[in-house]
């Protein structure tokens, strides 16, 4: 574990979390949430939790983003806040 690397990823994590909740376009929100999941995966790989990072890369960054996009496709793309 390298704490400088850790600090940089944590700052990016907070930024992407806030952006994905603030953006009005839900498709963009889903994509930025995928970036958030991938940063989380990098953080766990850096903390020596390789199995958790692998699961998050497959599940969080891959499949859950696809689920969100599928729901946005079936419902509305615009968000009021």
């Amino acid at each position: 574990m390298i704490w400088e690397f850790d600090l940089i990823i944590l700052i990016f994590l907070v930024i992407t979390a806030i952006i994905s909740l603030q953006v009005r376009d839900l498709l963009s929100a889903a994509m930025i949430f995928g970036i958030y999941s991938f940063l989380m995966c990098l953080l766990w790989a850096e903390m020596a939790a390789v199995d958790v990072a692998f699961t998050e890369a497959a599940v969080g960054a891959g499949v859950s983003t696809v689920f969100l996009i599928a729901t946005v496709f079936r419902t509305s793309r615009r968000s009021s806040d």
Partner: protein
Amino acid sequence: MKILGLISICITGWLLLSAVSDFPEWGDPHSPANSYQVSQHYITKTFAETSVPNMVTAVLADYRGYDTMFETVVIFTAGIAIIGILRRYDSSSNTINKPESFTEKPKEDLIIRTNCRLLIPIIQIFALYVIAHGHLSPGGGFQGGVIFGASFILLSLAHDLKTVQKKLPEGRILTLAGTGILIYAGFGFATIVLGNNFLDYSILSKIMLGTPIEARSHSMLGVEIGVAFTVAAIMFSIYSNLVSGGKMKEGL
């Protein structure tokens, strides 16, 4: 409502932040969680007891096998719940009014289809590798199953939902999902029949022709295959229900 939420999370956050100073230092090897004898036992004794170098998989599939079995059941239940919520069997013309940005359906692209035809076998081989080497390297049933399900999702994105349904009808997907849990539970019942505790694999050496330690390692592989069946099938089932609005006819 927004002001109320802001006040409440400020109070909760302040309470939690004031408790941070009581936590042990980050990365301290002698913190209570790291020096407790359960985790010490897992690190030092796992290879001697199970002959599996990856401790995470050993704890997941062997020491805490009962937990993992019902996590798999939770995933299966979630898939069944989504079918119960969304599935529509009527073929009425009650179509959903889609937003304008999605209504233009482009023609199927040659480049995308060719690339997917090249990529999907590689993805599936990689998924099988991840499942089979779950006890030797990072990976296992959950990860490999998700990757295997994602390859079918990619196929249905590149072509159509119907193309996949010719190969994998809905009933077959759910049969596969149930088969996974039955494989897992079958290992548990086999151990009971042979006279050991539920999911205590060392007795299976009578069937598998090896030492009890090797039997634990091989049973972990079998259990991971069961988990992978369920996870792969349920991931594709959830996707196909969500993307077609429960009609299982047209997709993205």
